[in-house]
């Protein structure tokens, strides 16, 4: 088999590009863009509301309830903003870098992700749990025993669910990093 035959063999494949309609691609791209804008708007509004609440209300009536609530929301907001930022940066590099540089960037990116996964995320989860723990005495006083138990159990299950999702993505990223480094 000579050199040219390699190209011949490659071209012999049926051309099944199953072409999408370019208009559908534009529609999908616009949808993706819009959902990104919506997410950023929701996040920004949450941060704004949190700031307004903290500065104009919570600081005047400061108690452990407000502290707990603030800890929960800030840890969650911080982690989500970090996630958006790292995804945004990765996408920017994807469209501007040559393969060689992007490959090197991906290695750095997933190494940095390990720091986020193993240091930043656990801290955020710990702060979130601590905030939730501070709220519990208030819930116990204000709500019925049944509803309090419901909040407690659903809170624990939500945390287990979120942790499972995070662990799954950590495993995936670790495997990919190993693949990149091999």
């Amino acid at each position: 088999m000579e050199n040219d035959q390699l190209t011949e063999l490659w071209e012999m494949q049926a051309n099944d590009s199953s072409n999408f309609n370019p208009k559908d691609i534009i529609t999908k791209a616009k949808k993706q863009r819009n959902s990104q804008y919506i997410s950023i708007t929701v996040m920004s509004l949450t941060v704004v509301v949190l700031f307004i609440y903290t500065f104009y209300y919570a600081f005047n009536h400061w108690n452990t309830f407000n502290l707990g609530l603030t800890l929960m929301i800030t840890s969650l907001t911080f982690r989500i903003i970090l996630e958006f930022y790292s995804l945004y940066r990765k996408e920017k590099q994807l469209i501007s870098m040559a393969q060689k540089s992007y490959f090197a960037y991906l290695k750095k990116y997933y190494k940095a992700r390990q720091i986020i996964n193993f240091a930043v995320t656990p801290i955020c989860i710990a702060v979130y749990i601590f905030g939730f723990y501070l709220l519990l005495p208030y819930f116990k006083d204000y709500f019925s025993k049944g509803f309090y138990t419901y909040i407690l159990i659903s809170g624990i299950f939500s945390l287990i669910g979120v942790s499972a999702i995070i662990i799954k993505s950590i495993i995936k990223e670790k495997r990919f990093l190993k693949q990149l480094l091999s």
Partner: protein
Amino acid sequence: MITEQQFTNIYNLHASKVHRLCLGYASGDNEIAKEWCQEAFIKVWKYRKSFKGKSSIETWIFRIAVNVCLGDLRKTKKNITVNDGLLPNNNNDDDNDDDNDDDNDNNESNIKKMYHCIDKLNEQNRALILLELENIPQTTIAETVGIAHGTLRTRLSRIRKSLLKCIKNGK
């Protein structure tokens, strides 16, 4: 900035090449290749304002496509299953003889072997040979991958030799 009409033209011109490039990265898995191809063109449209014309539009599109394939977190399949739809057409005319069947079987087997061998290459060499097989000009390949033109020529000849050896010997 790229208009809808220009995007349609760009898509019609490059989609099949991008799709086959993705196929090589996806070890012949057509579903994944279609997804990557679509994702690459979605990014082309989304970031069309970022295209400043420093390189050709072709280079920019191939860069995006290669990087989309490179960055997918999915585990590479150990067993390569080339979709039957991609293999040479088996519907022979009535007057075709057994020799044609043998040729088709041989080509099918070689295409499967080729995917298997491409899969063994490192990420950069895989990009180089896939772009070369799509007859992309070498200057565009060099810019897409980010290596010097001289290096590219030497590298391509080495990759071709090792691919041929692998297809023949299965190693």
